[in-house]
């Protein structure tokens, strides 16, 4: 009997350790050059910052770029003497696999086990929304990069105390797309093809539709697909019959590329238009000819002199072009460093307070955090158009929300 219960105890201990160690492997890296073991005396001089996002899955290209950007910036900051008079920054990055459940686990791990002072990411709204309770419990602030759904920072009219972001939100993005399409490009009949299973896609569709109709335009076709689909010809054949002026695609680049190819095959020649899910170097690999002339509501003007330096540094270090997410990850770092410096201490609650009054200049524009929304207020969108294999800047455009 005694032996049996001992064995049971041992087994349960083993299971427990398995459960604890079975979480995703940390992609941790100290910011310092060489990345060797830190000396014991310097150990308390390190400020740990968490990062979360997709390192695998459909959006891995974006997540990897974000983490790379944060690592590069931390290395640069550390080389120049760190923050708060010599403290070094370290990033601990975990993979969310683009899965909301996994995002919650990662947030728990970063706050509970790694004791980070703040978290950067994730980029997807669907992953950024469910982590709020974890942040509130641990009192650790999070700065989302490209999570544009309103619910990331505000729920039922109340601001979530520990969620911040550096990007504009979907109603704004939808309003900009509708306004620019109607007023500047003169589109009157729009067709929409969206992902019925995705928060981002549904939200953007709703707001685009609302603003486009309130301007006086009509939605001549509104068709849906489901995540994982690769063939869109049935929907596109229907859209072709409706004869729109523009095809609005509130989707991510993979679907956008496949849709563009198939639309052109079916003889749909109208311009395409999309939100911040589209810009990626991958779009050109997959559908360069089909996406020519596409208009995109973007966060950043790639040709802006301000961003050239960052682009070059990234290309020199990683030998790849920076993805859109890198620019927003950069601004999240800028916002965070400013808050840490103003807080004067690497304490997550003090940093949160400092974030609420932040007003910094990033590469994607001025980021002035609104106290009631935790969004960057009045941030302009950059309209870009695809010409060749470049995103050519058209103009800055801001829309009025009510």
């Amino acid at each position, binding site marked *: 009997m005694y032996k049996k219960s001992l064995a049971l105890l041992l087994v349960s201990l083993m299971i427990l350790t398995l459960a604890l160690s079975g979480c995703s492997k940390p992609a941790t890296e100290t910011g310092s050059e060489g990345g060797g073991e830190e000396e014991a005396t310097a150990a308390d001089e390190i400020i740990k910052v968490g990062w979360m996002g997709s390192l*695998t*899955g*459909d959006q*891995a*290209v974006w997540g*990897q770029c974000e983490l790379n950007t944060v690592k590069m910036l931390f290395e640069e900051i550390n080389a120049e003497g760190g923050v708060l008079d010599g403290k070094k920054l370290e990033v601990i990055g975990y993979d969310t696999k683009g899965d909301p459940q996994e995002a919650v686990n990662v947030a728990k791990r970063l706050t509970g086990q790694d004791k980070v002072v703040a978290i950067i990411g994730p980029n997807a709204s669907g992953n950024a929304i469910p982590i709020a309770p974890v942040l509130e419990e641990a009192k650790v602030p999070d700065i989302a990069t490209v999570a544009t759904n309103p619910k990331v920072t505000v729920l039922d009219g109340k601001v979530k105390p520990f969620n911040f972001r550096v990007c504009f939100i979907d109603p704004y993005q939808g309003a900009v797309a509708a306004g620019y399409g109607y007023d500047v490009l003169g589109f009157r009949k729009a067709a929409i093809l969206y992902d*019925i299973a995705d928060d981002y896609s549904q939200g953007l569709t709703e707001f685009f539709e609302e603003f486009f109709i309130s301007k006086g335009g009509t939605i001549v076709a509104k*068709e*849906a*697909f*489901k995540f*994982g689909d*690769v*063939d869109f*010809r*049935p*929907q596109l*054949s*229907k859209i072709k*019959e409706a004869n729109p002026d523009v095809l609005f695609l509130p989707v991510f680049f*993979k679907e956008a*590329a*496949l849709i563009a*190819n198939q639309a*052109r*095959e*079916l*003889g749909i020649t109208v311009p395409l238009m999309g939100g911040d899910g589209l810009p990626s170097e*991958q779009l050109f*690999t*997959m559908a360069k*000819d089909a996406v020519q002339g596409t208009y995109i509501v973007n966060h950043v003007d790639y040709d802006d002199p301000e961003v050239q330096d960052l682009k070059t540094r990234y290309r020199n270090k990683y030998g790849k072009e920076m993805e859109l997410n890198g620019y927003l990850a950069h601004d999240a770092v800028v916002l965070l460093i400013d808050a840490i410096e103003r807080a004067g201490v690497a304490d997550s609650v003090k940093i949160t307070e400092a974030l609420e009054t932040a007003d910094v200049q990033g590469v994607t524009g001025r980021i002035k955090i609104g106290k009631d929304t935790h969004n960057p207020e009045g941030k302009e969108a950059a309209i870009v158009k695809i010409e060749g294999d470049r995103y050519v800047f058209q103009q800055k455009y801001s829309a009025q929300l009510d």
Partner: protein
Amino acid sequence: MTQFLQQLINGLSIGSVYALMAVGYSLVYSIMNFSNFAHGGVIMLGAYFGYYYLTAAGLPFPAAFIGAALTTCLLAVIIERGAYKPLRERKAPFLYFIISAMGTSIFLENMVIATIGPTFRSYPEVLSRTPIQIGSVSVGRLDLTMFFISAICLALLVFFIDHTKMGKAIQATAYNIKASALMGINTDLVIIVVFALGGFFAGIAGVLFGMKYTVYPQIGIITNKSFIAAVFGGLGSLPGAVIGSILLGIIETITSGYFSSQYRDLIAFVLLIAVLVFKPSGLMGKVTEDKA
């Protein structure tokens, strides 16, 4: 009318893609009575092999095409030897085969993510993307090619099964594996041949797929639909797999074209369930007690 014809062509072309993959499921099921979910992973690798034979090795298209099919043929046999044979020797329940198959599928996907990377790769333009116009209906060149290659492959397969000694052995083994073994059929060899055939088809489907939808690690997901098509047509029956696939393709396109694309899967799958309720073995399936 134009709209209807266009949707019908869309449906046929999607259906023929499902058919190429569904045949792989049905072949294995007919012999081993379990659903080989690793098939999707093999198709994905077929797409990658074809891509690298074309670009990195610089082979002409027909050589790359056949090369990819032969490689996946070998791969499918290796998977059978590594993941299923040990289970078979221990007479494991069929559920274990399915779990082993799912494990293999997840392993293959993650292996590609870890080694080749998660980015998308595009086949060089082998066939012109400009569609052929017949009246006001446009038909993609690639779709036509896919349709004919699928048809030829399926015809060859039917010929092989019906008119060769090995084909007869496959039929006998499908009917009753134990009795066939007693009659002197080398059932182990039959199983290898069946996996090799499935792998060959997976390679062909993979290359055609990669050309049409670009290559990425999650491309195997689409096999879910073809598996459903195989069940619909009757798992284990080759004509059933083909007919089920084509029907599913057409039902899908007609629902999105004439009812609503939002409800496409809802309507299409209610129809499928209805068919299975009245005919549990699928449209052309053999009546068996054990469907897994």
